[in-house]
């Protein structure tokens, strides 16, 4: 493990209940700088809730979050200031603005402007549609625009919520390349198992809100509990 004490983002025993439903129960996760950490699990396992806790959209009943060792109570609009960027599961676009303007909204650091936005657009291969409106683009390209907006904020931690949803093979390969090459910490929620296994350093598996496994892709692949959660109990 890292020699630094508590660098990066850490979740400690997070529990979230929505009424009687336990969405997350005693989930702990350490996201060290530079690592790509995946969160997987069947539908309803609490993956997106975990993201929402980090973003401040959901407030845990118990547990705590730390960022670089300091207590962190996230507020959505202050995430960018803390260097955290998140993409949305759907495609959270500003449809009344051009692609370039969409990305410019994410550029909030001082002294950066259109050039930074173009850099992000080029990195995501959508600079050619800078003047287009997102609604006129196919889904895959819209997702790239959203990714560009997240990257344009130059995040320390990039949170990707099902970035491969609705993408074809070539697009997913491209996405995998990007995640591997991006020089930030990545927290990834994803259903596409090939992508998760190929890019992640560490994977957390959730099932009905409970953490059932945490380890490297190889360890997760060999874990019986994970197979059980995904495929059901062997008769």
């Amino acid at each position, binding site marked *: 493990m890292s020699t630094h004490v508590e660098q990066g983002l850490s979740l400690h025993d997070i529990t979230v209940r929505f009424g009687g439903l336990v969405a997350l129960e005693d989930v702990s996760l350490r996201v060290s700088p530079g690592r790509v950490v995946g969160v997987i699990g069947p539908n309803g396992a609490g993956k997106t809730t975990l993201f929402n806790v980090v973003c401040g959209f959901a407030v845990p009943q118990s547990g705590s979050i730390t960022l670089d060792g300091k207590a962190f109570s996230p507020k959505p*609009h202050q995430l960018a200031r803390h260097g955290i960027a998140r993409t949305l599961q759907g495609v959270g676009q*500003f449809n009344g*603005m051009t692609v370039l303007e969409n990305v410019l*909204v994410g550029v*909030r650091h001082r002294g950066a402007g259109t050039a930074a936005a*173009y850099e992000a657009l080029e990195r995501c*291969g959508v600079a050619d549609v800078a003047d287009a409106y997102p609604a006129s683009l196919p889904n*895959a390209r819209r997702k790239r625009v959203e990714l560009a907006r997240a990257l344009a904020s130059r995040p320390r931690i990039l949170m990707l919520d099902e970035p491969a949803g609705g993408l074809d093979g070539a697009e997913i390969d491209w996405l995998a390349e990007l995640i591997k090459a991006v020089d930030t910490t990545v927290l990834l929620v994803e259903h596409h198992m090939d992508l998760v296994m190929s890019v992640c350093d560490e994977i957390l598996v959730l099932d009905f809100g409970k953490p059932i496994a945490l380890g490297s892709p190889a360890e997760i692949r060999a874990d019986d509990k994970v197979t059980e959660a995904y495929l059901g109990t062997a008769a």
Partner: protein
Amino acid sequence: MTTVAIPEKVERRRVPTRRRVSPLLVVLVAAAVIAVLTYTLPPFRNYQLATIGAYLCVTAGLTVLTGLNGQLSLGHGALMATGAYTLALMQNRFDMLVLGLAAAIVVTTAVGAIIGLAAARLRGPYLAGLTLAVAVVVPSITSTFDETFNSDQGLTVALEPPPGTIGVEQWQAWLCWGAALVTVLLLAYAIRGRFGRDLRAVRDDETAAKLAGVGVARTQVLAFVVSSACAGLAGALFAVLAQSVSPGAFPLTLSLFLLMAIVIGGLGRLSGAVIGAFLLVALPSVAQSIAEDAGSQRLEGNLALTFFGVVLVVVMLAAPGGLASLRFPTKQASLRFPTKKASLRFPRKKQKGQE
């Protein structure tokens, strides 16, 4: 930074995405045109010109709030009343027009901030309901505190005649258009950069805006405050124009007219606000002359509203983006956007490189 191999080689485009004319240039040209007009028009037309200027203050602010930020306000008529009464009270006490105008803006801004704080927590019909309540409540305040506001009679505004041989109407036109052009200029610069993008981002998707680092509530309150200041100024100018204020001058229908005007003109565009302000004066005037020709008193009051309704329907059918969105297609443009309906709204859209 490590970079990712980009699948298709992208040619870097030159940065300007839209041809932008400097707002300062537009305002200076407009000022020159207005100045010439004030010397050539007869007094009544000058008065109408002045009224357009006063309306422009409020429509410009409202189109920023409703068009760019997506907050619907039915209360801007009441905010105008706030400005008008403030000016009347100040003017009758201190007899300094500039002070009165400044006070009108300050007071209305404060009222707008209070409404804005509540408004930032409300969406859609609930926001409309809140602002509607403001529109209903404010006139009734005048009868509750009738010692100060003199109930339905209202207040007269004592103004000194303009210096020299300048006609009153000409002077009014200068005052109103001076205020309007400064307002439009300030708004144009404000919405060009980050603030304008934040306004639209909040309008389009609040969650995504938050995650991109936009303070959603702060942006909404700020938009309401800015828009209120504009309404307060407009109200004060109306008090100057009429040399009186009364609750009857700021009915609920005024707020509705303002909204219709900016929608017809083109929501979210300052050029649309100009068109809207013009229509607010022109349509009732046309309606009145028709009604006078017909000799019907009953027609006179209602024809303007009918006119606006019909114009609204026709414009929405022909140009959903409002009159300001209309472009006269050049040969090239018509080749680029064949018959797509969306081209009316987003005329400069370009599609290529689809996968």
